[in-house]
């Protein structure tokens, strides 16, 4: 029996709950502590745990680097796109009142929209930084 059986089984058991907790922190960021940044870092922590326990090859099969390269700017673009509908109705950029019939509903939608953009950018940046450090050979 290999010595890391406990680590592998424990990581496999815990990883889905970490991802679920990250989603909880993200969607409940308006009702309790949390938001896009914390959720993004928790998702990155889950992927880093998977990479540490199962090896870089398995992690790069699960979360390929090409996805990350596209997700980092995608998050910033999602953020920017939350401000564009306001321009079409004569308001200022990033005015969320244009995102819904009622101003308050529009603001709530806008907050969730940009937090999703922040989540995608932060999670993929942290994972990409870890891949870059861990994949570099020793001189």
């Amino acid at each position, binding site marked *: 029996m290999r010595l890391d059986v406990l680590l592998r089984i424990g990581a496999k058991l815990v990883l889905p709950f970490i991802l679920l907790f990250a989603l909880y922190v993200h969607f409940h960021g308006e009702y*309790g*502590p949390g938001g896009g*940044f914390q959720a993004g870092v928790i998702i990155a922590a889950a992927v880093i745990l998977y990479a540490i326990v199962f090896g870089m090859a398995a992690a790069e099969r699960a979360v390929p680097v090409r996805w990350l390269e596209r997700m980092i700017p995608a998050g910033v673009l999602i953020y920017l796109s939350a401000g564009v509908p306001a321009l079409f109705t004569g308001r200022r950029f990033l005015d969320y009142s244009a995102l819904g019939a009622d101003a308050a509903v529009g603001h709530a939608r806008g907050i969730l929209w940009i937090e999703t953009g922040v989540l995608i950018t*932060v999670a993929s*940046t942290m994972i990409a930084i870890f891949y*870059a*450090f861990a994949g*570099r050979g020793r*001189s």
Partner: protein
Amino acid sequence: MKSFQTFVETYNYLVTVFLMVAGLYVVIARGNMIKKLIGLSLFQTSVYLLYLAPAKIDGGTAPILDAAYTVYSNPLPHVLILTAIVVGVATLALGLALVVRVHEAYGTIDEDEIFAESEEP
């Protein structure tokens, strides 16, 4: 009791200044680049403390609105420091990437050794 009260208030700010000075000392006195970056992050966290201490109100609670509370801590420094924390870790990652490249180019990450090596004719 008044002097104890003032002691308590000054103690918080004294420890914040001590952490700041300790971080600054590590950055300027130690030559190892990783140690310098750790000292920089110590300095940054002490600045967060300096910003967040005045935001607390006695008898208040966290700024999450609820019908049971009327006094909340000031949310504006919290927002500012949230941004600062994430920007701090981004610059730490970039600094450490530069340290890795410096190590590959010079074989060492000690500042004094690099300067001595570059001064040789």
